[in-house]
């Protein structure tokens, strides 16, 4: 019987939640790396027992942990992230030049095919890769050096590269997103890059339709249609039908189009999920009601999903990497909150239940569907 493994990164460690295909009874293991911030835990699509975790603190810096047994045991691998050459400066919040400085790994993206190959998105924004299971890391410096880097400015969470999407049909085609620079696209495995922000409009920057400078919060694709990309921007939910070359807004009837997380149903490429958040000044759901919104039309028309979710006095946030989908049928949807809850729906979002209620603030959620 199939099963699922939910990989949860929190402010104070990592947790692994497992259940059989019914997704009713859950076992909770952890914390792993207790007391450390775990920005992301992710599994290899090619070998589900191979997991990677990004572990950091302000005190002792960055570690990368690797598991070869599905998260039961872990060992640290390489943690030397060195920018190529002399990295120069980006902009600080006040517009002054700020030297590039490595802070942490936000996102880990294992290869579709090779368990030893993966990308890491880091703060200050850059893309690194490893082909030896995380033992050594090299920067794909063409991104940072493509031309607009000196103009990049951090979002409130830092100048972070938080989304890495490799086209499953052609791994040389990459999309990454940086807050608050925007989307960048490569067709040559990361050697060269172009901004991919045409159609974005951001009233909070001096030039609202600038080529770079947009606070993109998250991107999501369905693996069968990599050219269709959905985006939760600082404000606005957007869609591209040409792999990021152009974007159009699909916020439609959402109660607010601010938010962080976005994902696509595993079996329905036009079914998209977001969690609307009140505003950039109020990082909690509108009216204290935690609602996931689902569109079955690829955006534009959205319906609230509330059954099993708190509908009063709820003031948590759902961060950009804290939503994921499983590949079972019916499809499962998962998200974690800054209040430490991880919610699951085993029926495409109609009904929700908390798997756990009292974890540390949840930074990331990934799901593995196991045979």
């Amino acid at each position, binding site marked *: 019987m199939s099963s699922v493994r939910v990989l949860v990164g929190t402010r104070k460690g990592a947790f692994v939640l497992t259940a059989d295909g019914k997704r009713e009874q859950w076992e909770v293991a952890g914390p792993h790396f207790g*007391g*450390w911030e775990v920005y992301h835990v992710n599994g290899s699509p090619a070998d589900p027992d191979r997991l990677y975790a990004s572990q950091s*603190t*302000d*005190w*002792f*810096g*960055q*570690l990368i942990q690797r598991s070869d047994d599905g998260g039961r045991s872990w060992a*640290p691998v390489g*943690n*030397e992230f*060195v920018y190529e050459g002399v990295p120069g400066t980006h902009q600080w919040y006040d517009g002054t030049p700020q030297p590039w400085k490595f802070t942490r790994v936000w996102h880990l993206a294992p290869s579709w095919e090779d368990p030893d190959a993966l990308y890491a998105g880091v703060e200050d924004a850059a893309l690194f890769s490893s082909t030896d299971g995380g033992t050594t890391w090299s920067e794909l410096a063409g991104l940072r050096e493509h031309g607009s880097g000196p103009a990049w400015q951090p979002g409130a969470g830092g100048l972070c590269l938080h989304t890495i999407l490799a086209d499953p049909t052609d791994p040389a085609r990459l999309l990454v997103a940086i807050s608050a620079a925007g989307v960048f696209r490569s067709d040559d495995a990361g050697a060269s890059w172009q901004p991919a922000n045409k159609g974005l409009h951001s009233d909070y920057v001096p030039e609202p339709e600038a080529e770079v400078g947009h606070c993109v919060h998250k991107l999501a694709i369905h693996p069968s249609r990599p050219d269709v990309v959905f985006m939760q921007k600082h404000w606005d939910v957007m869609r591209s039908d040409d792999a990021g070359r152009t974007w159009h807004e699909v916020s439609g009837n959402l109660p607010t189009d601010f938010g962080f997380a976005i994902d696509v149903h595993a079996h329905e490429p036009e079914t998209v999920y977001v969690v609307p958040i009140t505003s950039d000044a109020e990082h909690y759901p509108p009216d204290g009601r935690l609602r996931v919104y689902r569109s079955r039309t690829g955006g534009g028309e959205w319906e609230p999903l509330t059954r099993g979710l708190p509908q009063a006095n709820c003031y948590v946030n759902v961060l950009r990497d804290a939503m994921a989908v499983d590949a079972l049928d019916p499809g499962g949807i998962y998200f974690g909150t800054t209040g430490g809850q991880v919610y699951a729906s085993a029926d495409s979002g109609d009904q929700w239940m908390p798997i756990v209620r009292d974890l540390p603030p949840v930074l990331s959620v990934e799901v593995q569907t196991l045979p």
Partner: protein
Amino acid sequence: MIRVVLPAHLRTLAQVSDEVRLTVEGPVTQRAILDALEARYPMLRGTVRDHATLQRRAFVRFFVEEEDVSHEPAEAPLPPAVAAGRTPFRIVGALAGG
């Protein structure tokens, strides 16, 4: 034998439960101790000082007896009591945050 006390998170990472004991060749300095520590426990590389610059991380301090020696030159000899193993070299996580 040099005695080194690690903060709790680094003891967990290095899989030790108590202070560690290291052999240091030549003059006993901060750099020599950290070189020996990282050679014996490679998982600690990058956690106390930067890989490339060897600069102490901002929220890490070094104490000897009741002295904060964090700002002493990395190549300066440490007190004889450290070299003789009578007192430990303490690596401390700064009190910050909650």
